[in-house]
């Protein structure tokens, strides 16, 4: 096992010998995407004309199907088959595993008469056209025996229990420390249930080749999807070939497979035809995961200079009754600020609603909406600038575990952000700045998000035409994986980008964990880098051992790679010629990365600071973003353009969380109030004004051999808190109930007599 010291050796990427690393090149697959020729899962070509599936969903939250009649549907025009739990082909029981190395258990569809949430699949129609499938679906008659359901999170708080297998994290004596503090803040924040709302609905195209099923599906984890389907069908994993090459947004919501995958595979087997199944937009809301609501009580105690003495975040969140998931909204605080007396922990309420799960920056995204506003309140109470308060609480080592930081540029993010944003123009007195009918204010907040490296592999082939092709069972969910892997491979082998190909999203390729937790770039990228280094050694040895090579007999360890050649002094051998002579298939190697044995001896995070200026309409209570700026530190940046897109995208998610996004549960049915994009308000163009971000120079030599880290989730962390703090600065109203919609703002303004 390697140690971080092994990673410190200079290498082609850290030396950036040809300048490809960091370069803002266009997206590798960009041309396909702007011409509409990138095939997403529902769109791949099938070996013969496909049939179309349509899923019928439950209309109750909890109970039993007492009768289901699919006869009318079966005899409707064009219908090939109609399934309910009564006649769906056999599948393994939920969670079952027969393959020893499966990452996921079985996930059967239409498995029983039990209904566990509104929107659960209860019937499936297969027909010759989408119109016929949908029309037949409307003919299915279902009778239910409803059972009492727990649907209301806030009304169920008293039922909250401990998160399974978890204990509160206690340092010192919080209660004593808090009550002994000179200055305190005590507030309860609420972050509502939110939806991923990826633009591409979950979809699968499936067909069988003999006893093997080929599926193209929209999923963030290649192996996870392959294993879940294999277990559900009771097959060895290698009889499921899963492709996921282009994914129309994931954000955590496609970290798992859904019934579209299972039913497409089953229906294709039953019909002998390729099958396409897509979720409707309504099913995306009701039948995939969501970010759970979180209520957070935050208590801060400090001395008069602002040094924190006591800090507590107690979070209560929800999950589905039979699908445990904890939104760890308090965890980030453990690494962010030091205080001798601390308490952080989570409680869980079980509800009869769809499954809660991971959504972009799970934990931090809702969690920072509380603590970063509490810090703003504390700063105001102390008469301190919010940045100064944070600087006074900047720890020397990780407050959670005493480990040194690999690198922590949080203070620099705040200082540079303040300067570029014009923070000195902020009037600290709330409500002091008016622009016509608008109250205008500024707010800031910090960002923190962990950095992770998981084991991963990659394959690399160099062929006689001088092309290098990287293959990896990895995904690109819009994050830029294709592009950065091309840049890493090009830099490692001394090739220009036109000589590099990247192929992803195939379960037959060397596996990588997929996209999630902002570990993708570091994990997949490091595997690609290591594989490139294996290829360098292989090619250099070939050059030294090949009598036809100009480098025959030379020391391979002295050879360098540049411009498609292996170079030593003034002699060179081209990769194309070497690979061509090696055989018709060229040269193929695999490589891998695993976490260093001592990687966890350092505290590794990405950091940032958000600054927002908002206007609050004194008449309507509407909050409008006026400008937003962030400075971030996230290791070496592989592609300045794409990294910035990730970051600004995350910041805009923070705008949505602060101002518009929420999905209440309808207590009558257990459905979500918003089941479409007209009701669920993700930000649109007109909501986003003058938003920009800067990434600091950084290299984290404890993270991986390239010193890179993830950026996909950092941008959302703390972003909404900066906006809420700006709302307070604008109009003097502290709203702790997200999103800050006009009704709430107006009521608060009125309550203040404004």
């Amino acid at each position, binding site marked *: 096992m390697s140690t971080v010291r092994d990673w410190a050796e200079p290498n082609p990427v850290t030396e950036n010998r040809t300048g490809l690393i960091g370069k803002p090149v*266009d*997206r590798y*697959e*960009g*041309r*396909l*995407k*702007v*011409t*509409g*020729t*990138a*095939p*997403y899962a*529902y*769109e791949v070509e099938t070996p013969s004309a496909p049939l179309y599936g349509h899923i019928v969903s439950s209309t109750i939250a909890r109970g039993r199907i007492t009768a289901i009649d699919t006869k009318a549907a079966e005899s409707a025009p064009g219908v090939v088959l109609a399934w309910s739990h009564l006649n769906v082909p056999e599948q393994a029981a939920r969670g079952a595993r027969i393959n020893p190395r499966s990452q996921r258990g079985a996930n059967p569809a239409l498995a029983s008469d039990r209904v566990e949430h509104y929107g659960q699949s209860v019937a499936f129609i297969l027909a010759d*056209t*989408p*119109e016929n499938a949908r*029309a037949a679906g409307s003919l299915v008659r279902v009778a239910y025996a409803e059972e009492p359901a727990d649907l209301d999170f806030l009304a169920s708080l008293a039922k909250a229990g401990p998160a399974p297998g978890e204990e509160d994290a206690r340092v010192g004596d919080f209660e004593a420390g808090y009550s002994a503090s000179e200055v305190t803040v005590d507030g309860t924040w609420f972050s509502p249930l939110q939806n*991923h*709302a*990826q*633009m*591409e*609905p979950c979809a699968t195209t499936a067909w069988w080749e003999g006893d093997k099923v080929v599926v193209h599906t929209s999923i963030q984890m290649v192996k996870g999807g392959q294993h879940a389907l294999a277990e559900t069908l009771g097959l060895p994993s290698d009889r499921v070939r899963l492709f996921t090459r*282009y994914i*129309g*947004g*994931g*954000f955590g919501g496609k970290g798992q497979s859904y019934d579209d995958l299972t039913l497409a595979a089953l229906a294709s087997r039953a019909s002998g035809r390729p099958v396409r199944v*897509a979720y*409707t*937009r309504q099913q995306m809301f009701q039948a995939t995961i969501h970010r759970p609501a979180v209520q957070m009580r935050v208590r801060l105690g400090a001395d008069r200079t602002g040094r924190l003495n006591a800090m507590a975040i107690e979070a209560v969140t929800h999950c589905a009754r039979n699908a445990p998931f904890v939104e760890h909204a308090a965890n980030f605080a453990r690494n962010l600020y030091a205080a001798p007396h601390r308490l952080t922990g989570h409680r869980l309420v079980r509800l009869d609603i769809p499954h809660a799960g991971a959504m972009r920056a799970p934990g931090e995204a809702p969690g920072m909406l509380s603590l970063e506003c509490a810090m703003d309140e504390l700063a105001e109470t102390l008469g301190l600038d919010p940045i100064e308060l944070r600087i006074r609480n900047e720890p020397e080592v990780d407050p959670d575990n005493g480990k040194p930081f690999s690198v922590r540029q949080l203070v620099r993010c705040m200082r540079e952000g303040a300067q570029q944003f014009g923070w000195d123009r902020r009037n600290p007195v709330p409500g002091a700045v008016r622009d016509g009918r608008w109250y205008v204010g500024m707010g800031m907040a910090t960002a923190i998000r962990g950095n992770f490296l998981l084991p991963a592999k990659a394959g690399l082939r160099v062929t006689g035409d001088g092309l290098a092709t990287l293959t990896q069972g990895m995904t690109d*969910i*819009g*994050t*830029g994986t294709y592009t950065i892997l091309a840049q890493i491979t090009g830099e490692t082998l001394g090739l220009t980008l036109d000589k590099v190909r990247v192929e992803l999203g195939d379960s037959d390729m060397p596996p990588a964990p997929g996209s999630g937790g902002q570990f993708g770039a570091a994990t997949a990228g490091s595997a690609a880098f290591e594989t490139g280094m294996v290829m360098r050694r292989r090619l250099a040895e070939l050059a030294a051992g090949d009598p036809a090579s100009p480098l025959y007999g030379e020391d391979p360890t002295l050879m360098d790679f540049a411009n498609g050649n292996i170079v030593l002094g003034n002699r060179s051998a081209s990769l194309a010629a070497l690979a061509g002579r090696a055989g018709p298939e060229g040269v193929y190697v695999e490589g891998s990365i695993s976490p260093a044995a001592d990687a966890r001896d350092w505290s590794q995070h990405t950091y940032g600071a958000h600054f927002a200026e908002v206007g609050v309409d004194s008449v309507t209570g509407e909050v409008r973003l006026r400008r937003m700026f962030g400075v971030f530190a996230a290791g070496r940046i592989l592609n300045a*353009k*794409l990294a*910035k*897109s*990730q970051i*600004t*995208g995350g*910041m*805009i*998610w923070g705008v949505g969380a602060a101002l518009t996004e929420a999905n209440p549960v309808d207590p009558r049915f257990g459905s979500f109030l918003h089941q*479409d*994009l*007209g009701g669920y308000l*993700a*930000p*649109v*163009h*007109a909501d*986003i*004004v003058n*938003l*920009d971000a800067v990434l600091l120079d950084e290299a984290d030599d404890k993270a991986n051999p390239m010193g890179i880290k993830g950026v996909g989730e950092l941008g959302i962390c703390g972003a909404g808190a900066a906006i809420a703090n700006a709302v307070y600065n604008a109009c003097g109203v502290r709203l702790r109930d997200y999103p800050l919609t006009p009704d709430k703002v107006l009521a608060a303004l009125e309550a203040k007599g404004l």
Partner: protein
Amino acid sequence: MLTTIRVNGVDRAADVDPRMSLLDFLRERLDLKGTKKGCDHGQCGACTVLVNGVRINACLSLAVMHEGDQVLTVEGLAGEEALHPVQHAFLVEDAFQCGYCTPGQICSAVGLLAEVAAGQPSEATVDLEGPVVLTDAEIRERMSGNICRCSAYPQILAAVRRAAGVAA
């Protein structure tokens, strides 16, 4: 119903189910899958195409209503070699991430530029008398029917400006 629609300059005749949306006609009958289905309810803009030069949501329109119409989809924008200026601008400004909303955004931007050139005002237009000035506010307002959950909005704004030849 036998329906003939001129799509990307070619007459395409098909026997169309009257329930079939223009979007499904393009995707399923003509195999033009560049036009995306994000919601099927006119709420996201992923299915935006140009019908007789005007942008519409193809999911909100039945195919049989378009007998004789000229439909332009994302597949019809680029030349043999060169991208359409709007496509090129989206590429260099990184105005997309997952790319699923992108064909709709691009068709919408093409329609927007034509509307502005024709002097059609929007909610954001300040002066209703003179020619429409393509301000950032105009672009944001006119592109607000196209949701991008990846939230490439700043980059899309830059792309539309670039395509319009407006200095950033």
